């Protein structure tokens, strides 16, 4: 009889059943709709196994997935390792050739801060509000990094919200960008910036690390790894390291990241009213960020004859390179020979750095 008592079937709760449905939905979206499959698939499966009773998978000190979570995320190992890979993938050329577009990446962070204040005013603690606001930066690893430190109980919800909205960038952003721009503005062809030489690209990660980390030391884990990856890339002498950082290593840690984030989402933690708020506020953050980027571009146009196509401002939220693709697509809809992709990559990458800095500021003030 003992074996029957230890069967999970009898320990199922209705909440677990609901979580199974959420898990299956995420796996469906990942596989059939290709919504961020690299993350949502392991997250979806992680949710399923975390909501099977009596497994102890997430039992502190003994569970398998708990170990992944503890040493990977609580110890802040995985998000910085992902940033190493992102650095190795990033070409700072577009950002350096039009430095004024960095402001658009900064403006889009307004979504993060505004949502932080909205979230505190509806009753979230400051730490929770920071984790929710950062969703608006549309950067997965940064959201995970910050939520794990400030509000681990919300980690699963914040991560899923961030990755879902990143996948939904092509649906969420265009209506806002269309609303805020005229047909003629969308047709603006931008003048190319100067070409960036190899030496500038080589010096940039070193100088940027020093400057950013001196200003916001709490951003160091992410910025240092990001710039190290970029230094690998631009040095052109360690191609093996560049390759490993941007492919194998990133893929390996992504597996452990996805499954352990999914596993933090048990019924008790996730099926709460606040989670609906988190998804709603995260979306608000993201929409505000899109809008403020576009609006700043329009304001900058008042002061310059070298016009900026305001669509480019929409790429100031990170979501690299999805947001830049949206800009390219909308620019081509207005004029099929208008190519904004590379212009949009500047604010897009600046947006990543801006979000990391925002996370560093929250950590400094609240951590």
């Amino acid at each position: 009889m003992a074996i029957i008592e230890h069967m999970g079937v009898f320990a199922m709760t209705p909440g677990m059943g609901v979580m199974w449905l959420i898990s299956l939905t995420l796996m469906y979206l990942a596989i059939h709709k290709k919504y961020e499959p690299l993350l949502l698939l392991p997250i979806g499966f992680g949710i399923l196994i975390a909501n099977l009773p009596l497994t102890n998978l997430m039992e502190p000190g003994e569970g398998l997935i708990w170990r992944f979570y503890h040493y990977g995320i609580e110890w802040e190992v995985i998000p910085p390792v992902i940033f190493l890979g992102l650095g190795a993938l990033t070409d700072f050329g577009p950002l350096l050739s039009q430095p004024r577009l960095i402001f658009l990446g900064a403006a889009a962070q307004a979504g993060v801060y505004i949502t932080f204040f909205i979230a505190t005013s509806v009753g979230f603690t400051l730490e929770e509000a920071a984790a929710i606001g950062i969703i608006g930066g549309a950067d997965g690893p940064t959201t995970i990094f910050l939520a794990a430190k400030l509000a681990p109980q919300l980690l699963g919800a914040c991560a899923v919200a961030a990755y879902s909205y990143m996948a939904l960038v092509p649906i969420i952003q265009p209506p806002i960008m269309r609303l805020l721009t005229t047909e003629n503005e969308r047709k603006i062809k931008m003048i190319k910036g100067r070409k960036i030489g190899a030496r500038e690209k080589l010096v940039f990660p070193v100088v940027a690390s020093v400057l950013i980390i001196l200003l916001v030391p709490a951003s160091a884990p992410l910025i240092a790894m990001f710039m190290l990856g970029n230094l690998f890339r631009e040095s052109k002498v360690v191609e093996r390291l560049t390759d490993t950082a941007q492919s194998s290593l990133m893929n390996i840690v992504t597996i452990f990241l996805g499954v352990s984030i999914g596993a933090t989402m048990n019924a008790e933690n996730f099926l709460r009213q606040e989670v609906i708020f988190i998804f709603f506020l995260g979306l608000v953050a993201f929409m505000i960020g899109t809008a403020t980027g576009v609006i700043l571009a329009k304001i900058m146009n008042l002061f310059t004859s070298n016009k900026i196509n305001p669509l480019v401002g929409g790429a100031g939220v990170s979501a690299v390179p999805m947001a830049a693709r949206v800009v390219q697509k909308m620019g081509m809809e207005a004029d099929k020979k208008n190519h904004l992709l590379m212009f949009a990559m500047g604010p897009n990458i600046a947006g990543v750095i801006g979000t990391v800095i925002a996370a560093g500021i929250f950590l400094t003030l609240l951590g």
Partner: protein
Amino acid sequence: MAQDVQAALAGNVWKVYVEVGDTVEEDDELFVVEALKMEIPVYSPCDGKVAEIRVKKGDTVEEDDVIAVID
């Protein structure tokens, strides 16, 4: 008068729709360049005949590279 067809963006040549000798019209789609997983069409700048094609499928192009010449 010969006119150059330039790649608007750095990327990989994904599709080549024309051959040397083909007659094309302005705004015909000549190539597709893939950049950041986006397929970006390259259109003909004018009416004419394709005099030269300097890339093939899979080639890497830089921004402003001349990839074909229309006569």
